[in-house]
């Protein structure tokens, strides 16, 4: 295969392409101009730093370093979820960390151990990018799921209390809200699975093709990653709700209102 990688000059043209959306933003006097510039700078700096770090991680390829990096990714995702849900950090940080860790580790373990021809549990080249893809989707799903669960309990408190007053256990009384949260959290992944290959060629598949592999190999990777993401999001959302239920409810089964930051 010919070397068709992105040169620094080429990347310069990529940045030049930004003139188009920035002109649109300026023309319509959108207030987001400053935010866009900050985001572009942040993206560039973060990716440069991660690129340097990942080069080092891939070179060393130490299982402990790989695991430590994955844990850092989970912690950052954990904090992002709580910030994205208008909930307070203290009671939820630990349960959501556990949910994210399990939700990422289970499909990642199956992917690296059983799906790949040769197990690659400790190979940074597989574990970190695939783990990142699963975790990123778990993060998105968990923000939607946790927010839907607690906000619908807040707005639907009367119906919830009626269920408790009719003898429902905590699990039984929260069941409709759990179902609503799961539906909301999983729907984007379900929709993506339904349109993958027709509407869009996903990132991983594109990456594998650009890496010089044939489309059939890319498709196998993509199917495996989509199933891993779907499994990870389902586990994370269910576990996230189940584990936060232990800390976000009073002993009497009512929602502890101090968890809401607004």
């Amino acid at each position, binding site marked *: 295969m010919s070397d068709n990688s992105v040169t620094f000059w080429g990347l310069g043209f990529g940045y030049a392409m930004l003139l188009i959306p920035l002109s649109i933003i300026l023309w319509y006097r959108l207030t987001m101009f400053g935010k866009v510039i900050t985001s572009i700078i942040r993206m560039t700096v973060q990716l440069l730093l991660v690129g340097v770090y990942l080069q080092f991680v891939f070179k060393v390829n130490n299982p402990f370093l790989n695991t430590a990096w994955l844990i850092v990714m989970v912690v950052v995702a954990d904090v992002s979820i709580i910030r994205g849900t208008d909930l307070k950090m203290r009671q939820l940080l630990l349960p959501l960390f556990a949910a994210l860790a399990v939700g990422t580790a289970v499909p990642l373990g199956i992917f690296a151990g059983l799906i790949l021809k040769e197990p690659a549990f400790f190979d940074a080249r597989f574990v970190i990018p695939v783990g990142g893809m699963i975790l990123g989707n778990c993060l998105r799903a968990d923000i939607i799921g946790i927010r839907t669960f607690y906000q619908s309990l807040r707005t639907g408190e*009367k119906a919830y*209390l*009626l*269920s408790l*007053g*009719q*003898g*429902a*256990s905590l699990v039984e009384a929260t069941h409709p809200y759990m179902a609503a949260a799961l539906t909301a959290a999983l729907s984007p992944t379900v929709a993506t699975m339904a349109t993958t290959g027709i509407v869009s060629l996903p990132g991983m598949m594109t990456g594998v093709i650009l890496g010089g592999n044939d489309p059939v190999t890319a498709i196998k990777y993509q199917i495996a990653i989509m199933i891993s993401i779907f499994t990870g999001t389902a586990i994370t959302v269910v576990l996230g709700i189940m584990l936060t239920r232990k800390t976000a409810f009073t*002993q009497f089964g009512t929602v502890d209102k101090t968890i809401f930051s607004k």
Partner: protein
Amino acid sequence: MSAPGIIKIDNLAAGFNGRVLIEGLCADIAPGQRVLIAGASGSGKSTLLRCMLGFTAPVAGTISFGGVRLDGHSVWQLRRRMAYVPQEPIFQHGVVMDILKMPFKYRSNSHLVWDDVKVEGMLERFGFAKNIKTAQSEELSGGEKQRIAIIAAMLLDREYLFLDEPTSALDAASKTVFTDIMRQMKDTTIVLVSHDETNAQIADRRIDITQYMRKAAENVG
């Protein structure tokens, strides 16, 4: 242990959002008694009911049912002996029949047997047309929701029945049916919060909680 079924309220203080509404409330409610909780708006009547159901933790004092003190552990067992009709019932999504059947699916109610004839009879008694069973909960009027909530509570056949303004949206005919049914319930301890004086006919005792209201100034700071 005191006699089975007696509700003992001992030196209760309760409120919400850090504001104490009532304090120093003591009362014994004997099994089978029908008690009307009276008092001005905002005096803490509904708060008292919420405390008895374990929806609001008391600020001070205790409530016990048949000698069992209501706390975070016992509440789950005690709620199996309670039924509740809220002031403005809101149900989960679904048709009326699903709403009525839902409590029968709870593990704590596994001893209850669904009786189609009884349900039909109660719906008819409350003046519902046959097609009400398939009506969506969101389509129900305030009065219909209240009647459905009352029927759902009756079907549970509990030892304690807590009602919060249960007739506020009912017409005269439904109020009469409600009064008749309450009067027939000899073995159930009924605690009723109401401004509606027609409900005074149901009660054989009245507790006015105005005397237990905490003065607003005492909540400052």
